[in-house]
């Protein structure tokens, strides 16, 4: 349970989960949506995998991630989203590239 709270505490990871709601996505496509380095993104994926909130599947040369959340975990994510759940030290806010593009 701690690993789930840890995974949901970070806004970037929550954003990844939100994006995966639309369907499975490649690691590259997901990483491109965030202004963070690839190793940081890999670390986020590792945390989500460890919490069993996503699963990875190798498809050719890319890794596809798909959502694997129970109803309770989804409700927890919604709760964390609404009330800004923080169980770990606050990470610097991550901007999403799409949003920054829209602003410019």
């Amino acid at each position, binding site marked *: 349970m701690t690993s789930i709270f840890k995974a949901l505490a970070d806004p970037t990871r929550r954003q990844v989960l939100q994006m995966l709601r639309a369907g499975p996505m490649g690691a590259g496509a997901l990483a491109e949506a965030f202004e963070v380095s690839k190793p940081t993104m890999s670390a986020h994926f590792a945390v989500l995998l460890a919490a069993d909130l996503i699963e990875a599947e190798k498809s050719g040369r890319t890794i596809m991630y798909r*959502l694997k959340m129970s*109803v309770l975990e989804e409700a927890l994510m919604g709760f964390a989203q609404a009330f800004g759940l923080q169980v770990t030290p606050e990470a610097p806010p991550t901007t999403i590239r799409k949003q920054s593009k829209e602003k410019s």
Partner: protein
Amino acid sequence: MKLNHPIRGALAVAALYLLGAVVFRELREHALFSAEAIARSMGVLMGLVVVVSANAIPKRLVPLARLSCDPGRELTLRRVGAWALVLGGLGYTLAYALAPIGIASTLAIGLLAPGVLVVVGVMARCAWKRHQAG
């Protein structure tokens, strides 16, 4: 022989129902539980089993890719089905726990039935899409 996990879980639930029925029967025979309390307890037990099982649907079921649709749609349908059953199961549990016993059964079924219908609809829609895709 080692049983795989889904079958073990289903057998555990079946055993829980049977054990619950036997325990409640004994309690009633010894006048420790009224008929109403037994009906409520079994209703709550069944509702909670629905909630717990439905909660795990998006996580545990094997991908429905063979049954459906594109992966994104499949995921959405699975989530909708799971949410419908969890909310229906919660309604079922609460109806048996709190409603007057005379209407608890009808109310519980009335609350769970829409969830079941949503799941049946989701599966039918997937099967229809698959049929259309050839």
